[in-house]
C-alpha cells in the first residue's frame, strides 16, 4: 500500500462522516461559487472587446433627465468618435405589472444603433425591414424565445412615463453576446405622439475608434457641454453599468460578508470532522509512530486527508454552482440579475483553491497535536 493510498483510504474509512462532511462543504462551496460569480460579473469582468470601446453619455443631473437630440451631431464631431446613437428608456408594461413580463424597451435610431453596438448580430434583411417600418421593432433572441415571438408578431406596450401605447411589429431578432432582454424601436414613433419627448433623448451610445481613446473622448464630450444648461456625464459602458449596480445599494459589502460567513462556517465544519476523526485514532497514531513514521509524515497524513475531503466537497459544490448559475441565467422571471452570468474558469479554480485551503487549515491544529503525541500515552488511550 502506497502512502497516497493509505491517506485516501483513511479519509473515507468512516463513510457516513466523510459523506456528511463532503455534503456540508459542497453546499457551502456552492454558495461561495455563486457569490464569487456575481462578484466577478459585476466588478471584474470588463465585457467584450467591443464593449471596451463604447461610451455612454447621460445628463449630469441623473439618468431620468433628458438630453437634447441635437447633441448627437456635436458628439459625432469629437475626434475618435466612430458612431453615435440615441437611446431612451420607454419603461412600458407588457401585458401586466408582473416582474416576469418585464423587459426593457429602448427608443433609438434604426440607422445607427447597430453601428454602435457592433457585437450584436442581426440578419441584414431584417435590419432593413426594421429601418423601413417606423412602428417596427427588433427583439433580443432570448426574449423572443421566452415569449415565443416570431417575425411579424405584434406586441403592445403600455406607456408609464410617456402617455401612449406602443403597437410594435417585430421585424427582426438579434443576438447579443450578453442576452439583454431588450427591445429596440424607432424613437420617432414616440416623438410624433408625445410633445414633450420631441427632440429629446435619455442617453447617447458612442463607439470610439479604439479602447485607448475612451477616456479622452469622455472628457472631450463633457467639456463640450460643460457650460450649457444640460451638462453631460460620459463614461465607459462598464463604468455606466457599475453606477447602476451601485445605485441598488452597497452590493459589494453584501456579497463580501456572505462569502466570509460561508468560508468561516466551512472551516468550522471541516475542523470539527478532523478533530473527531483524529481523536478516535489516538492509539493508531501511537502505533504508526512505533513502526517508525516520523512526525512530519503523520502530520502530512492528516492534512492530506482533510484536503482530500474538502477538495471533493469543493469540486461537487462548484459543479453544482455551474449548473445552478446557468439555470438561473436562463430561467424566466429572474429579471436582469443573473442575466448572462457564467461561472468562469478562474472563479472555478479559485473556489476549488479556497476549498483546499480550508481543508488544510482545518487539519493543522488537530494534526499537529497528533504528531507530537507521546507514544506511551497514545497506546494507553481508551477512546
Amino acid at each position: 500500500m502506497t502512502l497516497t493510498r493509505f491517506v485516501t483510504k483513511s479519509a473515507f474509512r468512516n463513510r457516513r462522516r466523510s459523506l456528511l462532511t463532503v455534503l456540508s462543504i459542497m453546499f457551502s462551496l456552492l454558495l461561495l461559487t455563486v457569490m464569487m460569480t456575481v462578484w466577478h460579473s459585476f466588478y471584474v469582468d470588463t465585457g467584450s472587446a467591443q464593449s471596451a470601446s463604447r461610451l455612454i453619455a447621460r445628463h449630469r443631473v441623473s439618468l431620468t433627465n433628458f438630453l437634447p437630440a441635437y447633441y448627437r451631431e456635436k458628439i459625432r464631431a469629437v475626434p475618435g468618435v466612430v458612431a453615435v446613437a440615441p437611446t431612451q428608456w420607454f419603461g412600458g408594461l407588457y401585458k401586466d405589472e408582473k416582474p416576469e413580463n418585464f423587459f426593457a424597451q429602448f427608443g433609438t435610431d434604426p440607422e445607427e444603433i447597430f453601428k454602435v453596438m457592433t457585437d450584436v448580430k442581426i440578419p441584414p434583411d431584417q435590419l432593413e425591414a426594421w429601418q423601413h417600418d417606423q412602428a417596427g421593432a427588433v427583439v433580443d433572441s432570448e426574449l423572443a424565445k421566452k415569449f415565443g415571438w416570431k417575425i411579424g408578431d405584434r406586441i403592445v406596450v403600455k406607456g408609464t412615463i410617456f402617455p401612449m401605447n406602443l403597437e410594435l411589429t417585430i421585424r427582426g431578432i438579434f443576438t447579443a453576446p450578453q442576452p439583454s432582454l431588450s427591445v429596440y424601436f424607432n424613437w420617432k414613433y414616440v416623438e410624433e405622439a408625445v410633445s414633450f419627448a420631441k427632440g429629446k433623448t435619455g442617453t447617447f451610445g458612442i463607439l470610439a475608434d479604439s479602447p485607448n481613446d475612451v477616456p479622452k473622448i469622455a472628457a472631450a464630450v463633457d467639456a463640450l457641454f460643460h457650460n450649457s444648461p444640460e451638462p453631460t456625464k460620459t463614461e465607459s459602458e462598464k463604468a455606466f453599468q457599475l453606477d447602476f449596480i451601485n445605485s441598488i445599494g452597497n452590493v459589494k459589502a453584501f456579497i463580501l460578508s456572505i462569502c466570509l460567513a460561508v468560508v468561516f462556517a466551512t472551516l468550522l465544519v471541516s475542523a470539527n470532522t478532523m478533530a473527531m476523526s483524529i481523536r478516535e485514532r489516538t492509539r493508531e497514531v501511537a502505533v504508526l509512530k512505533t513502526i517508525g513514521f516520523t512526525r512530519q509524515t503523520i502530520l502530512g497524513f492528516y492534512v492530506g486527508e482533510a484536503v482530500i475531503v474538502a477538495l471533493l466537497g469543493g469540486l461537487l459544490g462548484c459543479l453544482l454552482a455551474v449548473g445552478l448559475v446557468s439555470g438561473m441565467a436562463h430561467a424566466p422571471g429572474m429579471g436582469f440579475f443573473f442575466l448572462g452570468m457564467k461561472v468562469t474558469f478562474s472563479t472555478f479554480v479559485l473556489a476549488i483553491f479556497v476549498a483546499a485551503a480550508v481543508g488544510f487549515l482545518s487539519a493543522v491544529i488537530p494534526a499537529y497535536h497528533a504528531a507530537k503525541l507521546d507514544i506511551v500515552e497514545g497506546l494507553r488511550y481508551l477512546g
Partner: protein
Amino acid sequence: MVIPISYNVRNLKLRKGLTVMTALGIALTVTTAVFLMALLAGLDKAFMTSGDPLNILVMRKGSTAELSGGFDANLFPTLKTLPGIAQDAQGDPLASGEWVVVVVLPRKDGTGEVNVSVRGLMPGGLALREEEKDSKGRPRMKLLEGRWFSTGQREVVVGKSIHDRFSGANVGDTMDFAKGQWKVVGVFDSGGTAYDSEIWGDVNQIAVDFDRQGGYASVYLRATDPVSADALKNRVSDDQRLKLEGTLETEYYEKQTSSGGAIKFIGTVVAIIMAIGSSFAAMNTMYAAVAYRTREIATLRIIGFSRPSILTSFVLEALLLSLLGALVGIVLILPFNGMTTGIGNSLTFSETVFSLHLTARVMITAVVFALVMGLAGGFAPAWHAARQDILTSLRA
C-alpha cells in the same frame, strides 16, 4: 420514563470543543439569516409606515410612480375644489401640486454616488403632511433644525437620512444640483418613512430648474375622513375627462415594497443553502455523540429507559445544540441592530434609506430556523441510537 435533560446538558459540556464548534457553525448560519431578515424587516417598515390613509395621490392614468411623467397644471384648480378635501386654518384646501425629480449626490463615506429624490411642493403640501399622525395619534412630521423653505426662494429642507448620509446637508450649507446652488434651511424627520430620504423645495423653483413648467407629476389631496378619502379617490379615477388616477398614499407605498423582492429571493436562497450545509454538520456531530456513547445507551436501555425516551433524549440534545447556536447567532448580530443602509428602487430610481431592524419576530424566526436545522441534523442519529441492539452495543 424520561431521561432528564441535565443528562444532555452534561454531555454537551463534556465534549466542549465539538459542541462549541458545531454551535458556532449553526450560529454563523443563523447570523446570516437574521441579517437578511432584519434587512427585510427594516425595508418593510420604511415602506409600510410611509403614506397616510387620508392622503390621496393623483397621477396621470398609467403612471406607476411619481417619477414617470406628469399632467397639465390646468387640472389643479379642478382637483383642489373637489368636495371632501380638508382645509387649513385660513380655509384653503389642503392640496399640493408636486414634482419629484432625481439628482445624484456623492455619499459621505466616499463609496460612490447615489440617486436621491428631490420633491417640489406647494405650501399646501407642507401643511398637508403636518396633518399626518403616527399610530399613537401624534403628529409624525417634525422639523429637527432650522425652518421650512420659503416660497419663491432657492431653498431646500432635507430629510433626516439625507442629513446623516450626505456631506453638505447641514443647515447653512449649499447643495449643488440642477442649474445652480440651493441653500439648506432645515432638517426634518418624518418618523422613519420614505420622506426621510428626500430633499424638499418649492415646486415652482424645482420645475424651472428641471424644465418641467406648466405641469405636475402628482397632486396630493388631504381628505377630511376615510369615507371621503375613498370617495375622492374614486371621483378622480372615474372622471373620463381628467385622464387621472387617484390612489391612497398607503396603497402607493405598499406597491413600492415589492422592490425588496430581489433581496428577499436572494436572501432566502442563501439562508436555505447555508442551513442545509449546517444541518449536515450538526448530523455529523450527533452521529459522533451517539457512536461515542454506544455502551452508555445500551446501559440506559438495560436500566429500563425505553427506545422512545432514548430517541427523545438525543433529539433534545440536538435541539439544545442548535438553540445554543441560535443564541450565539443573535448575539453576533446585535452590534448591527439599527445600522442604516440604502436600497435602490426601480420605481423611483432613487435610494430609500432604512435601518436594520431586529424585531421580536425576526428573533423568533431565527430560533425556529435553528431548531429546524437541529431537528434535521439530530433525528437520524437519534433514531440510530434508539435502534441499537443492546448486546452488541455492550460489547463495543
